[in-house]
């Protein structure tokens, strides 16, 4: 399939901070590619390198068959992460303004309808709610009906209903053949929208693939979470591995235990176990691994690797380390 976005070994540093380290990716026509990763992982820098708004130190990038600096801008739509358009233009005027910059533009009222802002069309941008503002910004990327769309955290600050409006919009665009590269901290968003996901950590794309493949390869096993004050030792006789939940799951580690690798049909045996041993619990919940598990696993692994490097005094030599890996591979 034809690659609409192609990046090879992109590197970018700001002073001593490595923003991108040998980042390579390829996105096919009509594909939705989501970049996930912790703050400062390099997502925005990668988007900027691909859109030509930052110059990588090395490596190459091509979008729509041309270098980012030479691409036909009529075919491109970009939403920067911290974009703040003129505040005293109404949402309709704002879209008309951006539409006026293109050879062939859509009717701003149609775009307003797409982003669910018909009723707020006459309201100044600065008087819109945060979520409405972000939707107006998303609308500004759609006025030229782009073939390739870069959305840097498009749903940040948008309420759940507005988020779903944007999701449906992105799905419709992808169905119509638009290639979309987006960054997000919302794993549900990535899982729902993306054909493929790339996880950036510490400037490197540490994994990429379809969400289900990433979950299968890196997400671990299914889990039964038991809200209880009992320690994992209390479950020593259970036929499944039991551990404390990982951090980031909205609970303190000592308020629950997680039973791994358990089939839903076997949950009854766990309930029997709890009652036989009179272990008090307040709630049981079973879940398949998801993209958040992938994120936590891989981001944690990268963070540990980085900490180890820093502790061993090798923190400033990331690029060298990667090049060495490349040499070994070759």
């Amino acid at each position, binding site marked *: 399939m034809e690659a609409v976005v192609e990046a090879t070994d992109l590197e970018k540093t700001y002073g001593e901070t490595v923003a991108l380290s040998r980042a390579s990716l390829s996105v096919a026509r009509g594909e939705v590619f989501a970049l996930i990763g912790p703050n400062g992982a390099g997502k925005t820098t990668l988007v*900027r390198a691909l*859109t*030509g*708004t*930052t*110059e990588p130190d090395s490596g190459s990038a091509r979008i729509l068959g041309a270098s980012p600096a030479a691409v036909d*801008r*009529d075919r*491109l*739509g*970009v*939403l*920067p*992460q*911290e*974009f*703040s*358009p*003129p*505040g*005293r*233009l109404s949402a309709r*005027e*704002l879209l*008309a*303004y*951006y*539409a*006026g*910059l*293109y*050879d*062939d*533009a859509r009717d701003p009222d149609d775009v307003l309808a797409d982003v669910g802002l018909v009723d707020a069309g006459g309201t*100044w941008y600065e008087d819109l709610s945060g979520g409405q503002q972000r939707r107006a910004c998303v609308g*500004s990327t759609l006025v*030229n009906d782009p073939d390739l769309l*870069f959305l840097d955290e498009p749903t940040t600050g948008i309420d759940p209903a507005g988020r779903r409006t944007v999701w449906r919009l992105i799905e419709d665009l992808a169905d119509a053949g638009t290639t979309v590269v987006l960054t997000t901290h919302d794993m549900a968003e990535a899982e729902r929208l993306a054909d493929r996901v790339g996880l950036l950590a510490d400037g490197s794309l540490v994994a990429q693939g379809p969400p289900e493949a990433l979950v299968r390869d890196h997400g671990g096993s299914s889990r039964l979470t038991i809200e209880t004050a009992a320690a994992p030792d209390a479950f020593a006789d259970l036929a499944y591995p039991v551990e404390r939940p990982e951090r980031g799951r909205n609970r303190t580690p000592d308020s629950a235990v997680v039973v791994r690798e358990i089939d839903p049909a076997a949950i009854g045996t766990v309930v029997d176990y709890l009652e036989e041993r009179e272990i008090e619990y307040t709630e049981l919940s079973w879940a398949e691994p998801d993209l958040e598990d992938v994120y936590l696993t891989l981001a944690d692994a990268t963070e540990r690797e980085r900490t180890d490097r820093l502790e061993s005094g090798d923190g400033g030599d990331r690029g060298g380390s990667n090049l060495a890996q490349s040499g070994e591979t070759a």
Partner: protein
Amino acid sequence: MSRMGRVRAETTAGWRSFIRRRTAVFFTFFFPVILIVIFGALIRTDPTGEGLFTEPAAYYVPGYLAVVVLFTPLSRMGSEVARHREGSRFEKLATTPLTRPEWLLAQTAVNAAIIGLASLLILGLVVLLTGAQIAFSPLLVPYILIGVICFCGVGAMLGSYTDSQDGAVAASNAIGLPLLFLSETFISLSQLPGWFEPLVNLSPLTYFARGVRAATYTDATTPAVAGVDPALANLGILTALAVVAFALGARSIPRTD
């Protein structure tokens, strides 16, 4: 969409944004008015005395016009560039067909409209409050327009090379105030030390002041330049400087981080 279409879209957005900031509109016009009231009506000129304001009132018309032709583009462009940078608007525009010269041209058009209106107000007030007898030369139009182009270019550079809106405004004041008083606007060359003359000749505002004075003040003693009428010659020099300032200003506008 043609180049003109893109410039029109940017100009319309810039104009709407400006006129909806009422405080900015008020003070853009209030600043030159208060200056005329203070210097022209309260202090008054004294052609027979010594020190400042010893020339007839018409001599100072270029100075009053320079207040808006110099300060408005410097401060507006400086803060506009900084505002665009801080709101990632240049990052967005860099991915659209709008080019940097087109953006600067649109902003210049907005400034030209504002300064054109302010200049009419200034000329009216100067005549009304100071009794200045001036010739309403058609050359005033290109002088004001080219002056605006020149200082919009300088303002774009200030905004690009400072790191914040506050920094841009402070820099425009620091550069604008000396230029305003040391460019043969309010202070004649004879009142300055002889060694200062080459510096005065470096200021684009000097050619604006000399040319406007030659065009509007019938008793002006502005010298010809290489035998060419001073009203036209200074316009030519100002135009050359404006082309350079506009080109450098457009080039300085950030496209990447």
